[in-house]
């Protein structure tokens, strides 16, 4: 291995006198587990190269060694705060491969768990967004208020964060007694609480002056770059998998999607917050329409095997469309499992948005992409 030829794409760069190269991360608290290599000319960013991969754990490779049930706990690790939603497409895909038909009650409980999890994730994201902008109150409030929903999920699943709740064939266990009442009360209080965020954060002139008209992503570019979720909807494209390709019982529930036209950091930071209110609406509706009793899981054979074939399922997670592609070859383990995660898909917009921005706007633009480094790396 002495002086190997440079692999294609690698190049040796000369140091420029005017342009300074700055590594943001991977230890920087503002970048998460990733590095953003920015080149700055004075205060303006002229080039940006995101460098993810510091928390790459090979989830896809690991999945090839474990059977369809054993894959559940480790597949939710890439984004533990949204663990129900990252398992959702996998579970739907395995159900299609194994030909399982799940009960109506299990579908509703899944939707409730997924929506609660979406709120938990979004609150965490919002807390960090607050601290990125130096707004300590916006860190404290969401970090405290998400405990309400974490308690609910703990009652449901037994675990505070890594639930492993969804399984092929339904859910792991039924709801505890009296859950509906507690859930309704907590969710109502939660909704009242997040509405107060408007006063302190979203209508705050300081936030507006820092995020409005920064990092503008036009509608055409949002589509061309294949962005998804809140980034896409902030740029005026009305696309939500829950509406466009409803899975489980989303087609029976009453909710709207939030779309904004401006495409700037402000819109991208506001859409997830508006989505949380829709989530509360979905949860209330689902609690009402849910069958009050019935089985919640199908008994699986030990080491279930899929047929020969492949399946691609997608759901709307807290960050956007999350796809799972499973190739099965009649073995208990998947032959190949690919997670197409929204963070990875939205990352492509980062170099695009940062060029021409001031360095000081980098944190707000970066975090408004709803990017979760661990999920992008898998």
């Amino acid at each position: 291995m002495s002086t190997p030829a440079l692999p294609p794409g690698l190049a040796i760069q000369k140091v420029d006198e005017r342009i300074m190269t700055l590594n943001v991360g991977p230890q920087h608290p503002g970048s998460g587990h990733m590095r953003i290599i920015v080149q700055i000319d004075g205060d303006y960013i002229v080039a940006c190269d995101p460098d993810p991969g510091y928390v790459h754990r090979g989830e896809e490779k690991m999945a090839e060694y474990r059977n369809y049930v054993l894959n559940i706990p480790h597949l939710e690790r890439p984004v533990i705060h949204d663990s129900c939603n990252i398992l959702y497409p996998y579970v739907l895909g395995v159900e299609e491969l194994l030909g399982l038909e799940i009960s109506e009650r299990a579908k509703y409980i899944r939707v409730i768990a997924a929506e609660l999890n979406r709120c938990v994730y979004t609150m965490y994201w919002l807390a960090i967004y607050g601290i990125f902008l130096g707004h300590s109150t916006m860190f404290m409030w969401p970090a405290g208020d998400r405990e309400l929903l974490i308690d609910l999920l703990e009652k449901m699943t037994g675990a505070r964060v890594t639930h492993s709740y969804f399984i092929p064939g339904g859910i792991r266990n039924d709801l505890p007694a009296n859950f509906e009442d507690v859930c309704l009360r907590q969710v109502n209080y939660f909704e009242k609480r997040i509405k107060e965020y408007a006063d302190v954060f979203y209508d705050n002139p300081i936030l507006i002056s820092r995020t409005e008209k920064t990092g503008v992503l036009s509608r055409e570019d949002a589509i061309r770059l294949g962005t998804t979720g809140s980034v896409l909807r902030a740029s005026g494209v009305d696309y939500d998998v829950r509406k466009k390709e409803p899975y489980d019982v989303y087609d029976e529930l009453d909710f709207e999607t939030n779309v904004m036209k401006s495409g700037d950091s402000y819109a991208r930071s506001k859409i997830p917050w508006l989505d949380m209110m829709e989530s509360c609406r979905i949860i209330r509706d689902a609690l009402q329409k849910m069958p009050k009793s019935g089985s919640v899981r199908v008994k699986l054979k030990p080491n279930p095997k899929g047929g020969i074939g492949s399946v691609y399922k997608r759901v709307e997670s807290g960050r956007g469309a999350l796809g799972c592609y499973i190739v099965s070859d009649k073995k208990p383990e998947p032959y190949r499992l690919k997670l197409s995660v929204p963070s990875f898909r939205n990352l492509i917009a980062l170099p695009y948005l940062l060029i021409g921005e001031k360095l000081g706007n980098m944190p707000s633009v970066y975090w408004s992409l709803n990017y979760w480094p661990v999920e992008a790396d898998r």
Partner: protein
Amino acid sequence: MSSEPEKETVGKKPEDSKPTDDKATEKPAAEKPVSAKPDTAKKSVPAKAPPKEEPELPAFEKGIVDKITEKFGEKTTVSFVKPDRIGIKVGRDDIHDVAEFARDVLNYDHVDSVAGVDYPADKEIEVVYHLSSYTDPSLSRQILELATRAQREDNPIPGSDATKLPSLRDIFYSVEFHEREAFEMLGVYFEGHPDNRRLLLPEDWADLPPLRKDFRNKGR
């Protein structure tokens, strides 16, 4: 993968479209609520005779398949048609044209996912593009799977061996990072991609591309 023989018949179907049209009128109503239908159809594909599968074909998806087979004929193989999902296999020389056709004529506007799958037994690596559309409301549920295969070498030198495919980055900008990932994870070099560096793996990774089947996890 396995079920190539009966796909030919699916591709040839467009000539006698009368019978399928009749079935098509009743199909859309029936197929949506019963989500188990595609499973049973797909699982039984290897066992059942081809004619059994034809009534299962959903009308809208079939229309898209017809457009593709009409334009490219023998160059494409339809691997499956399920509700909302279409799988097309394309040779490496034609993938670029088919993708361009999918964008310009069929209105698919972005790529959801690019998955590389290693088939050591066939000495090939398959790259699967999942195309989807934001702008065309009729396609909002649809995923078009374009699969193409590159030659696989046992002792890969990523980028310098025969494992190469044309990049779709000039057609779908959204594949940029996905193709970089497929390059490092499976060693498929995408010709025409402007930026073929590693993305997730360390720059000095000197082992096999990790998603190949002959790369074994330690202790497994």
